[in-house]
């Protein structure tokens, strides 16, 4: 019985280990904590396996446990960014910034993203407050639907959408700041004729 249960659990969880770990790492900023968070999640998921309704969405179920485990056990230890300003966060933030700068020709706007290293993007993600980072990760990196995210973070659909849209804009601003710091762009504004 026990062995069968373990086998079933392994088969269910192994396809999602990478996703669980990647999300845990982006949430904790630290490999050891990420491994511990995944381990705690697996422990709780295994113990609660009888509560999981077969033929429903295991991936969303186990992510919900990961998120709750992070919030109750790890969140306080993770340094949150200093006060974040939500001013000037308009739609198409990055595109508009690129449109307004002197140094980039129209042809290079599409190539602009090639400048970034993986670590720039991870750093930009890490700079978001955790509520926004979590929803952006779940949607844009892990590919969960709005409804799935709503269940995973236990928040209404409207909250999911507002955090996602605001989180994406915060991420664009953060990428813009990285681009300036790394010298991929200047802040000099085009003169409009």
């Amino acid at each position: 019985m026990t062995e069968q249960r373990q086998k079933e659990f392994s088969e269910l969880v192994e396809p999602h280990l990478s996703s669980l770990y990647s999300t845990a790492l982006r949430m904790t900023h630290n490999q050891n904590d990420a491994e511990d968070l995944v381990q705690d999640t697996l422990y709780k998921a295994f113990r609660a396996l009888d509560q999981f309704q077969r033929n429903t969405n295991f991936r969303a179920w186990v992510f919900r446990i990961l998120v709750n485990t992070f919030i109750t056990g790890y969140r306080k230890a993770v340094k949150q960014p200093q006060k974040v300003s939500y001013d000037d966060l308009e739609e198409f933030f990055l595109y508009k910034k690129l449109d307004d700068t002197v140094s980039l020709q129209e042809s290079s706007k599409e190539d602009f993203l090639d400048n970034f290293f993986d670590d720039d993007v991870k750093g930009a993600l890490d700079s978001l407050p955790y509520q926004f980072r979590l929803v952006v990760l779940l949607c844009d990196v892990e590919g969960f639907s709005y409804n799935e995210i709503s269940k995973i973070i236990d928040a209404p659909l409207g909250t999911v959408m507002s955090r996602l849209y605001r989180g994406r804009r915060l991420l664009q601003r953060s990428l813009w700041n990285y681009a300036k710091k790394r010298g991929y762009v200047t802040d000099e504004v085009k003169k409009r004729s």
Partner: protein
Amino acid sequence: MKSKNAHKDHFDCAEIEELAQKYIDGRLTDHEDKLFKEHLEYCVPCDKKLKFELQLKEFVQLKSKEEVPTEKLKRKLNKLFEELN
């Protein structure tokens, strides 16, 4: 629930901006999606912005991939089973 845009026969640029995120995530109604795509066909600035947003979404997914210590995690899983036995 009926969409607030059900009576519309076209979208302007401000409406495209307002609905852009939903479009990116495939959350528009069929009618909204049709009007949205029609607008992108004739409006080059909006079309470019949306292409950039879609490219950015893919880019974030690609660049945030991690090297995952899969074997280590599997070992942890097995250790967990041993402890529970």
